[in-house]
């Protein structure tokens, strides 16, 4: 438990929840990043503009935080590129089929008491836990 950062974690989480709150209250949209992204890049997108703005805000928010608070971690540089690509494809595939991700189902879905989102959240958390266990402790870790 040596890297446990409870205060920044709760504050960061609360900021995420606030962002989702604002998007719902102001724009009437669910802050599910996978859905927002897909809607931004698809060919016929009637509401592309707010999506682009939201994603730009996400990038800028991150950049701003980095600027103000400085780097909080050193990015790893030994992770298998192939595995990263596979993981990204799985996340892209799964979030589309399952209609959501950690922000859509986890933050927003749970917030609006959606049983469907609760099931999705429990599912991807438990599968992720099992996957990490297998990758790190059964397959001996990957780099």
């Amino acid at each position: 438990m040596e890297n446990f950062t409870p205060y920044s974690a709760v504050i960061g989480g609360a900021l995420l929840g606030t962002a989702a709150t604002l998007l719902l209250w102001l724009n009437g949209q669910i802050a599910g990043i996978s859905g927002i992204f897909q809607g931004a890049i698809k060919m016929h997108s009637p509401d592309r503009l707010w999506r682009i703005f939201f994603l730009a805000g996400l990038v800028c928010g991150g950049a701003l935080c980095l600027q103000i608070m400085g780097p909080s971690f050193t990015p790893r540089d030994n992770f298998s590129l192939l595995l990263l690509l596979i993981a990204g494809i799985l996340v892209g595939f799964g979030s589309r089929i399952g209609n959501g991700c950690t922000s859509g189902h986890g933050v927003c879905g749970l917030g609006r008491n959606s049983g469907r989102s609760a099931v999705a959240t429990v599912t991807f958390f438990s599968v992720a836990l099992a996957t990490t266990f297998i990758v790190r402790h059964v397959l001996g870790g990957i780099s």
Partner: protein
Amino acid sequence: MVNPEKVLAFLDITGNWDPSLALVMGGAVAVTLLTFRRILCLPRPLFASHFQIPGNDAIDMPLLGGAAIFGIGWGISGYCPGPAVASLTFGSYEPAIFIIAFIVGNFLAILWQGPKVEPIAEH
């Protein structure tokens, strides 16, 4: 949570466990549980004509399968879409690669499933 190793440190429960991600989720859901119900009681959002909430309540194979596949990718890499986009400017190539792969996975899902239209409960 833009640091994938910090996400993996949470998911790696038998390893050097870092519970931080749970507090991130907890903090986020604590806020949305308080606010979403109240907001959805409003007649309309402030700057839009209506709310766009998913209208599908079914717990079906696509939901379970999709969430499981998402979980595998997340559990391998420690990345999910939000943090990847947020950390694009942080100096590592990983988020950009992940996002490109995400788009490919997206496209494969569309090929597999067809351009589905999710029902929106507009109110």
